[in-house]
């Protein structure tokens, strides 16, 4: 995805918004095909789709530099695509093939790509948040100005790991941006049944940490809020907790009903009216910057990209049996001389 330096000129603003639309639509079409692939048995295990939440990851990641770090939960396909990871590599991973981004060893929940500093894809709720604090620590240790963005669901804020991680990030003044994607349901349990407070960004008060809440269905709003937090992290080395309010249009995972069990069809239909893609598309169309034709062409193009990813994945071989025993351990040790110096960015 083309990255443009953000300035206030209308031309680049339109370009930026087109890029964001493109990214979100790619994620949408990708996830829809994942649902299909799962039903066909090409994807196994757990598959947690990002449909409805695209503006969160896309808006946030759009303000990052290539040398910034991202860590997230198992609902990671959208963020991976927003970060520029290849649809082919992701789909091949979901199909469990050798050309998958982690060589078929991780699957849907564990997408990693060192080339774009995408630190996974983690399965234990809350487990990755202390890791984000550690990345922030390393940035400060080296005297760099990178930031670490940590996405999490709203259920994470009740875990011990969240508490410990944010306390240390605030205590040590680390350049972390903690982003809660509050889709209102921790699997089948509504926020109100799990959390003693509902404005969960206020958990940051326990750590005297800057915080905010933002509408997660408007990618530009998300982008602006994350930009502010990223600037704070980069220039002052201070963390922020941002609550981004969103909704998932599918179930928790492919094993979960879309609606009718713990959430109503009516509720879902209300939220569908604020589909982030429709929100941005409408904005651009009202400004005369996008026609129906433009959108259709973009959609066809992206559907073809996803089809190409599917075909690539389908044709990629399963990992060879020897791969079973690869990458349990490395057989190297630290080099005595060459890497002794700490690189300060």
């Amino acid at each position, binding site marked *: 995805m083309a990255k443009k330096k953000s300035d206030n000129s209308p031309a680049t603003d339109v370009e930026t918004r087109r890029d964001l639309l493109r990214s979100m639509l790619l994620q949408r079409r990708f996830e829809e095909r994942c649902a299909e692939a799962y039903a066909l048995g090409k994807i196994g295990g757990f598959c947690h789709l990002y449909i409805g939440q695209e503006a969160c990851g896309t808006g946030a990641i759009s303000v990052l530099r290539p040398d910034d770090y991202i*860590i997230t939960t198992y609902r990671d396909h959208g963020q991976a695509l927003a970060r520029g990871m290849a649809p082919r590599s992701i789909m091949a991973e979901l199909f469990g093939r050798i050309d998958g981004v982690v060589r078929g060893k991780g699957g849907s929940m564990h997408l990693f790509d060192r080339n774009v500093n995408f630190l996974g894809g983690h399965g234990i709720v809350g487990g990755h948040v*202390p890791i984000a604090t550690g990345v922030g620590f390393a940035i400060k240790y080296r005297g760099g100005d990178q930031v670490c963005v940590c996405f999490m669901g709203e259920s994470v804020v009740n875990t011990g*790991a969240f508490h410990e991680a944010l306390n240390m990030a605030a205590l040590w003044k680390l350049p972390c941006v903690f982003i809660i994607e509050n889709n209102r349901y921790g699997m089948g349990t509504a926020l109100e049944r799990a959390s003693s407070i509902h404005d969960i960004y206020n958990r940051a008060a326990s750590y005297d940490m800057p915080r905010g809440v933002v509408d997660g269905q408007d990618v530009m709003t998300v982008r602006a809020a994350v930009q502010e937090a990223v600037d704070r992290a980069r220039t002052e080395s201070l963390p922020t907790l941002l609550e981004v309010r969103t909704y998932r249009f599918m179930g928790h995972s492919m094993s979960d009903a879309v609606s009718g069990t713990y959430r109503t069809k009516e509720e879902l239909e209300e939220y569908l009216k604020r589909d982030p893609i429709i929100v941005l598309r409408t904005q651009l169309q009202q400004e005369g910057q996008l026609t129906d034709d433009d959108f259709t062409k973009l959609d066809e193009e992206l559907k073809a990209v996803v089809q190409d990813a599917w075909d690539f994945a389908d044709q990629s071989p399963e990992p060879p049996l020897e791969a079973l025993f690869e990458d349990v351990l490395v057989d190297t040790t630290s080099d005595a001389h060459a890497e002794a110096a700490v690189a300060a960015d």
Partner: protein
Amino acid sequence: MPVITYRDALNQALREEMQRDDRVFLMGEEVAVYQGAYKVSKGLLQEFGEMRVVDTPITELGFAGVGVGAAMVGLRPIIEFMTWNFALLALDQVVNSAAKMLYMSGGQYNMPMVFRGPNGAALQLSAQHSQAWESWLAYIPGLKVVAPGTPYDAKGLLKSAIRDDNPVIVLEGEMLYNTKGEVPDDHEVLIPIGKAELKREGEHASIITHGKMVLTAMQVADQLAKQGITIDVVDLRTIRPMDIEAITTSVRKTNRAVVLEEGWEVCGVGAQVVDYIQRECFDDLDAPVVRVHQADVPMPYAKNLERAAKPDAAKAIAAVKKVMYLE
């Protein structure tokens, strides 16, 4: 050769490795200003500063995860647990993050880090502070687990652990910190992970052991020698990957084996040793293997009960005589 304490041997290892490589840092409770709960990190804050010797809040899960994150992006953390009993809280990070990161990421993110601290019983610390965890950690593919029993092994194994590009568990012992032994004054004292050592040689039986029980085994060897019984003492030094060849070489020679450990019986490290022996040395055995371990109870407080619960030289001697069909 200088004779130093196990504590000082660890301190040397930490200091030397932190001097050698700027990416190495130490993090844990009381490691900095307090100079270490057991003084293992004495003087390090003064030499290396507070970015490299980091006091944490009491947050084992949190700071173990901080170590994981730092290791993912190129630093080489040494995470200290004040005792391994508290590390239960951190097991999600040790097992689900550190041990699995390389595999799950398809080889992209290796974890060059060390988790270390005192393991097992001390004196009258009662049930929650007296547990030996080798077995739980040795269970996990993706980890290496070492348990030095002497100052030389402590220095050499900790240095190797720090230089290893994998997550290495180092199990020390509060009761070991004051023990003394010869340690070369050499910055390149490195003991390979995965290699046991024959600490005593004999012909009548083999004791396979590790950690605190190594000293016990050597006392047993000395005492039995007076009775004309000589034994091999195989100090495993590394629990995972275990040096199966060292075990089988000894047992094929003596034909009788005792496995001595401080932990519990069920699914303990000794159970795995016995499996290797029965697999490789079935026809060499002249007696079933006998294990000596802690009683199958939480550790009690009362001095006499604790003594009764713990394995010791007398119990190990009885075990050797049992495999020799004496008395």
